[in-house]
């Protein structure tokens, strides 16, 4: 069973990488920015009626907060897995 997932992983990453290199990579903008453009085309008169209460002052700070988010998540997962591996190990010792 295990090798199957390895094969799936390998195939999908290689497809992803090859397609990514083919794609006309203009700027790798977020899909939400593209949606914003599309909204502008459909109804040019639309103005966002609310703006974010707080915006990260720079791209650097934004990536800080994004990495903090994923760090919190991986901490939770890692703690759980480590805890259970450890207790299982101790029980068998």
């Amino acid at each position: 069973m295990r090798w199957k997932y390895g094969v799936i992983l390998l195939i999908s990453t290689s497809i992803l990488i090859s397609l990514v290199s083919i794609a006309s990579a203009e700027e790798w903008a977020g899909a939400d920015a593209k949606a914003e453009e599309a909204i502008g085309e459909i109804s040019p008169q639309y103005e966002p009626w609310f703006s974010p209460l707080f915006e990260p002052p720079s791209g650097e700070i934004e990536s800080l907060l994004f990495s903090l988010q994923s760090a919190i998540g991986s901490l939770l997962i890692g703690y759980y897995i480590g805890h259970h591996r450890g207790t299982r190990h101790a029980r068998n010792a």
Partner: protein
Amino acid sequence: MHIMEGFLPPLWAGVWYVFALPIVVYGAYRVKKEIEENPRNKSLLAVSAGFIFVLSALKIPSVTGSCSHPTGTGVAVVMFGPAITAFLSVIVLLYQALLLAHGGITTLGANTASMGIIGPFTGWLMYRVVSRRLDIKLSTFIAAAVADWVTYVVTSIQLALAFPSGGGVAGVIASATKFLAIFSITQIPLAIIEGILAALLMGYLIQLRDTVVEVTA
């Protein structure tokens, strides 16, 4: 990629709030009940929330030349069902709306409806169907990939409903095609990646604790 702050007219923002709120409140109640009745599952709740945190922070480049991020709701919905997943998603959506200006407070209802409710719910239905025949890892793969992809289909429809390119149903459909071209194609490879990661984590969790299988919703 969630709907940006202010990018849904007040009417639609309200509609999605009304749709999402009761389910999130029920989800919060279910989380509380789960912790009281099965304190041992508290840590599994944290793990499934952690998976949503990690995956929805990763903006990954995709085939269309733009970036998007997975949702991470697959593991939560397989283990605890759609209501609890809705509540866990709101935590992440609030973090991103308040600190990252990603998504928004006015669009929180709509984003919860897509990422927290309709997407995972569809994934959960798929899981219920396939888990009788397939093993848990493969079922988790399918559930997570479906939950991820449907999330963005719903996002496209939400935008199309708010911004039809013409009158009536035809306008909505024309507009939906446009948004689907942006979101759904970008999302296909990401949904596959998310499915694989969810299946790997699920397999690992089962190895650690056999009772995980009993937990699955």
